[in-house]
């Protein structure tokens, strides 16, 4: 009856928030403290700073080429063949990445709650739900993100508030860590910038921006989303390190999950909060994987000139599923995530930067004021 609505700034912001708050932040304190012990907060800030740069590049590109998708304008900038090749790289990269984070999530479920349930079922159930959700148009998917936003934000804030009383500020000091060199921080920062949620957060912009109400909305939404989720990630990290200390945060695979086990509600209603939080983690994993899956099928549909991303909803399923089932065990998986994530920096940071430069040189797209 009416023209399809378009995505607003707040919906963009919430979509980015939901995509970034995912299963990866459960393991973030471990990886950050592995690199620079008590300098974990600082190294995360560096990593997220790198992410914000990446987001800025993507936003500038989106502003220069409003209402065109990433694949379309890269075709305009560097030609058909080269952009197709890079598009293929993006596709393969995200298929691997989404498969791996689905697997990581399933590992977590399986190690805490479902030791006897086969991995295929845990992975498959999540991927099927995600695939069904991507049958909707982009605007509806942004509604979905919008709706789930408070369900992720409020429990996370609650967790921070509840854990705050156990924080020992001595654990977080010294901010620079003990005996760290500059290159340690750079290394750590790059590792954090190579986290799956960073890639998904940045690349989600390529899906949302062509559908936003105006390029201004996209800029405002993406910057706010990036800043807000960075703030929350840093806060949760601070709380986790503050409670455990950097030495202890290294040992569990998902320190934040252990934290949810420790916190208790003031009143004796539920014995353990972690299972309740599990619901939240399932939701956060769903929103993250949904965004990632959307990136895959949207990029795919643009790359192969399909009418709509919906066509690929079920076709991409076996590919992602295959990627998810590939790692042999959890350590293999973590290795792969780090490896793929670091290579992915080329795709999500350097490639857009390269595009932006070429576009500036060749004076393609809308010229900025």
């Amino acid at each position, binding site marked *: *009856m*009416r023209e399809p*609505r378009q995505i*607003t700034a*707040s*919906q963009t912001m919430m979509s980015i928030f939901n995509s970034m708050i995912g299963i990866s932040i459960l393991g973030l304190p471990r990886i950050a403290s592995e690199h620079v012990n008590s300098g974990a907060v600082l190294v995360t800030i560096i990593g997220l700073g790198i992410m914000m740069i990446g987001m800025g590049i993507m936003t500038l590109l989106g502003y220069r080429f409003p209402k065109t998708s990433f694949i379309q304008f890269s075709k305009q900038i560097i030609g058909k063949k080269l952009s197709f090749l890079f598009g293929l790289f993006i596709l393969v990269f995200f298929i691997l990445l989404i498969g791996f984070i689905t697997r990581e999530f399933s590992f977590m*479920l399986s190690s805490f*709650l*479902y030791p006897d*349930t086969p991995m295929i*079922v*845990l992975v498959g*159930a*999540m991927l099927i*739900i995600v695939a*069904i*959700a991507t049958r*909707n148009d982009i605007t*509806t998917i942004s*509604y*979905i993100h*919008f*709706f*789930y936003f408070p369900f992720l934000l409020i429990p996370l804030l609650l967790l921070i508030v509840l854990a705050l009383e156990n924080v020992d500020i001595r654990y977080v000091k010294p901010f620079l860590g003990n005996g760290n060199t500059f290159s340690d921080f750079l290394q750590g920062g790059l590792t954090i910038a190579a986290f799956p949620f960073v890639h998904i957060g940045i690349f989600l912009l390529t899906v949302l921006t062509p559908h936003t109400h105006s390029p201004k909305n996209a800029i405002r939404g993406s910057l706010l989303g990036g800043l807000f989720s960075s703030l929350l990630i840093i806060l949760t990290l601070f709380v986790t390190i503050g409670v455990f200390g950097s030495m202890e945060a290294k040992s569990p695979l998902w320190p934040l999950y252990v934290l949810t086990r420790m916190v208790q509600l003031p009143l*004796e*209603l*539920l*014995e*353990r909060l972690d*299972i*309740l939080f*599990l*619901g939240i983690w*399932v*939701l956060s994993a*769903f929103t993250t994987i949904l965004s990632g899956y959307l990136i895959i099928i949207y990029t795919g549909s643009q790359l192969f000139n399909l009418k709509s991303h919906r066509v690929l909803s079920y076709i991409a399923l076996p590919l992602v599923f295959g990627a998810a089932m590939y790692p042999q065990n959890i350590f293999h998986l973590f290795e792969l995530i780090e490896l793929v994530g670091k290579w992915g920096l080329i795709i999500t940071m350097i490639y857009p930067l390269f595009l932006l430069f070429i576009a500036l040189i060749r004076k393609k797209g809308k010229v900025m004021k």
Partner: protein
Amino acid sequence: MSIWNRFKKSHTSSSENKKAETISEKIVVNEMLKTDYPTAIHQIQQVFEDEADFAIRELVVFGNINATIMYFSSLVDKKDISEDIIKPLLINTISNHEISLKEVVIRQTLYHADVQQAVQLADIVNGLLRGNTILIIEGIPEVILINTKKLEKRSIAQPETEQVIRGPRDGFIESLETNISLLRDRIPVPEFKVKSKQIGRITKSTVCIFYMENITNPSLVEDVEKRLERIDIDRVLDSGYLEQFIQDNPRSPFPQVKNTERPDVAVGNLLEGRVVIMVDGSPIALIVPGTFIMFYQSSEDYNERTNVMSVIRMTRIFSIIFSLVTPSTYVAIISYHPELIPTAFSVAITSGRAGVPFPAVIEVFLMEAAMEILREATVRMPKQVGGALSIVGVLVVGQAAVMAGFVSPITVVVIAITTIGSFATPTYSMANGFRMLRFFLIFTTGVLGLYGLILGLILIMNHLLSLRSFGVPYLSPISPMNWGGLRDSFIRVPLRWLIDRPEELFVKNSQRINNPKEYPTTNPLGPERHTDMKEEDQ
């Protein structure tokens, strides 16, 4: 070859038979009634050869002119015919020979208000079948149709499905004309539009579309008309038939068209910019587009105090979520995560379940099924048997099953709470949708525990979020959010603050209240007034 021929032959002959079968096809579409008086009468008689209730009365009017009256005795008011048609025709004589006979009959003689003329046979037949009396007079080529329809109808009563404590007591009935009068009486402005059309090849039911010309978005009206236009079915026996044809997603368990029996609800929605559809023969009006939150609003919410009604609205929403999730959460806790609840409670549950032979999923599923059977049985039962049934239900399903060790007492409590919770929905169709989804959630939880429950809920939520009714997102004003709309969703703010009509409907005139700030608290009997009066006295 011969088989082929036979097939061909039988095919053609059967189609010929079919053609001969229906009377309406015998009447050629544009066949005119013969002008010759006896032939014309014969022509009509032929159509209704053996009808038991088809009546013919021959008269001689104005002294010397032959005339015939025909009607279906089952459809007409005979008193009307004798008083308003036959009596004047017989008593009057022609005094003025200047004007033609037809004019004399129509303008000077007949007392009845609703008089029409027809020349085509199809129109005449149709008119007869709709309760008209036809008058054929020798020398007048046209046939005069007089609407003498009289059908038995029940009186206006309080609707049984949407009862209110404070609010109007009248409800729609089966007669469309009465229903229109109920609406017109409440909206006495020319902008209130009623469009009518006939749907149903055989039942030819009259369907009316109501809207406010100065409020409703014209493209919504257009879309409703377009969707109704497409319907090609032999019958429309209730507005539910239409609902199923015009809704956006027929597979969804959620109703996308609101229905009501209450004229005040219909008027309220008309004034918000929605479109109301009614069918002759059904007391239930359809309101489109329907959004989720509409099904949790009752007309009483606007008549009572706001804060109290807001709490009640939240109770309704809470109870539906509660009744949807409780059984599956119980299953998840008992069979997958018993460590979630405090130890003392968990011991109590386990001891209660000690003798139960089934896993929790089966137990809950069986109890839910028993509850549904009980409920379905009580709905269809005659009232006299209903009491006995409920006793059997309570005693056998509740008490005896626990005593026999089939189910644990806590399961019974959970199911009972769930069932009561599902009754708190003001709309029956929405409650039904959630009833079904409860089983779905029990199933997913049975397979995957809490993970399955969350995934099931995500699936339901995603469906709700993607659902649209006539282009309006089903969950608006919650998602996409609009603050103005939220004032009348989970809560209901005072009417004087509900300034705008719902934003998602893109109405022509969004102003509901024109002077939102002009309700100052005055104190007519306060001290100031008294001093004024004293001064005046002096």
